[in-house]
């Protein structure tokens, strides 16, 4: 599915280098509202760097990123980031604040108080017991913590959700459940989601569009169905081969 609506997120000849190391090279790309985009690639392919150029945790060295038609570098970074939900592998819940305070943090940065009802609602959205709001993060399991991380990212009413290996540290069952939940939220809340993952199976199952990166470039831009039917070139197909082989072997075991 190529972009049909007006570009919600646009990359124009984006590049990022640290000295001699070119992490992202000349990426030009449009992402439309409502898309669920997975950025897949091996370690060091530049996918996290590309993602962080959107919320300016990394600032590009050439080209630009436009969000809703505006250069993200135009204003100060902090207000921009508050409009963008961000979930990452490290989760980063603040240990000195209760779960509820962690969730209410983004509105608080804008001097707005998040009501207890809204906190309960957000906890329910990520399938957690609202009673957990008064607990400290240390009392939660890893899966519960990342659910709180997602709730916190949604608290600012942002329509863009960035996720950097969000489920990387979770056990497989939690990982599957939370992935499904996030996909459902994406649809319910009309989000545009960009997710970095090194797991092609996860990308194929959750995303509506898969971008494959290699050495800082985007080498494939396909729907999951097209990738599975053999499109996208050698590097993309090598990545698709892994879950496909696993599925075949599993199917063989049940026969």
């Amino acid at each position: 599915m190529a972009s049909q609506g007006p570009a919600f997120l646009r990359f124009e000849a984006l590049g990022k280098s640290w000295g001699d190391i070119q992490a992202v090279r000349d990426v030009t790309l449009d992402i439309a509202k409502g898309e669920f985009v997975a950025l897949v690639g091996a370690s060091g392919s530049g996918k996290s760097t590309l993602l962080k150029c959107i919320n300016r945790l990394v600032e590009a060295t050439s080209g630009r990123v436009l969000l809703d038609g505006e250069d993200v570098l135009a204003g100060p970074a902090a207000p921009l980031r508050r409009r963008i939900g961000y979930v990452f592998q490290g989760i980063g819940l603040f240990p000195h604040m209760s779960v509820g305070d962690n969730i209410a943090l983004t509105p608080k940065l804008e001097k707005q108080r998040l009501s207890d009802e809204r906190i309960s609602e957000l906890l329910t959205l990520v399938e957690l017991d609202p009673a957990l709001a008064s607990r400290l993060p240390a009392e939660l399991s890893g899966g519960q913590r990342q659910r709180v991380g997602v709730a916190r990212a949604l608290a600012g009413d942002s329509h863009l959700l960035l996720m950097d290996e969000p489920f990387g540290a979770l056990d497989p069952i939690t990982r599957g459940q939370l992935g499904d939940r996030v996909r459902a939220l994406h649809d319910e809340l009309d989000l545009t989601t960009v997710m970095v993952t090194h797991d092609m199976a996860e990308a194929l199952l959750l995303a509506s569009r898969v971008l494959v990166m290699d050495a800082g470039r985007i080498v494939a831009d396909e729907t999951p169905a097209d990738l599975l039917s053999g499109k996208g070139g050698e590097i993309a197909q090598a990545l698709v081969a892994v879950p496909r082989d696993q599925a075949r072997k599993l199917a063989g075991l049940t026969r």
Partner: protein
Amino acid sequence: MNSLFDAVMGLGPQLAEHVLLCAAAVALGIAVALPLAVWASRSATVARVALGFASLVQTIPALALLALFFPILLAARAIFGEGLPTLGFLPAWLALALYALLPILRNAVTALANMDEELIEAADGLGMTGWQKLRLVQAPLAAPYVMAGIRTASVWTIGAATLATTIGQRSLGDPIFAGLQTQNWVLVLAGCIASAGLALIADALFGLVERGFATRRPAFVISGALLALAGIAAAAVSLMDWPGDERDNGRETVVIGAKSFSEQFILARAIGALLEREGFSVEYRDSLGSAVAHNAVESAEVNVLVDYTGTIWTNEIGRTGNPGREEMYDAIVDWEAANAGVQVLGRLGFENAYGLAVTRGTADRYGLSSIADLAGVASQLVIGGDPEWFERPEWIGVRDAYGLRFGEQRTYSPTFMYNALISGEADVISAYTSDGRIAVEDLVVLEDPRGALPSYDAIVLVSGNFADDPQLAEALQQLVGAIDVETMRQANYAVDRQEDKWPADRAARWLLDEIGL
């Protein structure tokens, strides 16, 4: 034990000033260290420079750091005017604050540098500004470590603040230094117990605050902080002049200085007693270093001081020759007046000269009666001196005049010097001729046929701002020419002896009584 209890209980004002000095120093240390730590967390260069400087300060002995602030503040008068105090609270406060800097700074910098990177990424990712990140994330998470630094700084400062006595700030060092001078171990112990007790209390209170931060129990933080504040407030209240106090009688307070030996303590108390009879209110600055004491009169931090002609001649004016007693005195009167408007009120009547002293046994064994006799046998002997002696021009002068080459030289505090001589650790010492122990221990002061050692008439110096005060001059004139060396020796011995020691003020009363005042 009873006298120890009384001595500790009598330390109220010293304890109160000690508490306030330490609280002010740690507060200033915090006020400088925390912003510096935040700056250092954003710049590796700042971190290196700040930590390097704080570590360097820590390597300076506290005693030297305190003393160094005297010349620094004296120089700063060029900017801040003549009203800037150079002794007492201000230099002690600044020096101790510098001392408190390192533990706070190091802990804060380390806590900020080692903060969980995921939390920093989350703070940035959520859209915190730098200030919000500091306030909401970094400060609360660094708080237990910063508090541990403050706790260490407080304990160090409480210990180091006892040294503030040497630059004229009242503290728990007063009984320690006075006791060391006069070998009054009860006083020394009382000072040590009081400052150690204070350090333990501060450690416990700040430990409570630290634990409160670490375990997120605000009750601990608040109760620890409130108790500490209550202690500081109580100290402040106890020192306030309440309306109706009989102290204030409209006259400016006269500050009487004393260097760090018994004779100075006694004479300061005697002068104080005479001035109080005339209606002056007086304060004492005890245990000042020799050069600090003279500078303090020049800068009018100290208003009255007993000094010695030979000391001023060599150390202040920087002269080497020995023109004879009268000529030296006249030259000093002129020099003091021209130099800083200091008035020389007159000579007390006795001399406290440096002399080389040996035991009777040593004198007999080597056949010593004058310093010239020493030259041949010096290489077999050990000479002991007070901490100043081997740096003083008098020593250089006498050494070169007689060609003295001693086998070894050792430094003792003035009090222990005599013990060292009598126990045989030293064979020759730089004794003071008005010291009571010379007669009692039957010591031989060697003659000085070449006149290498100048005379040391005790004289009364009055700072410029009191030089024209007729009432003060009249009160002190009574002492001029009134004290002979035998009376001074007896008063000194009453304070210095091992048994039945008198406090300095009792010896002062005896002295005044003895000379009919």
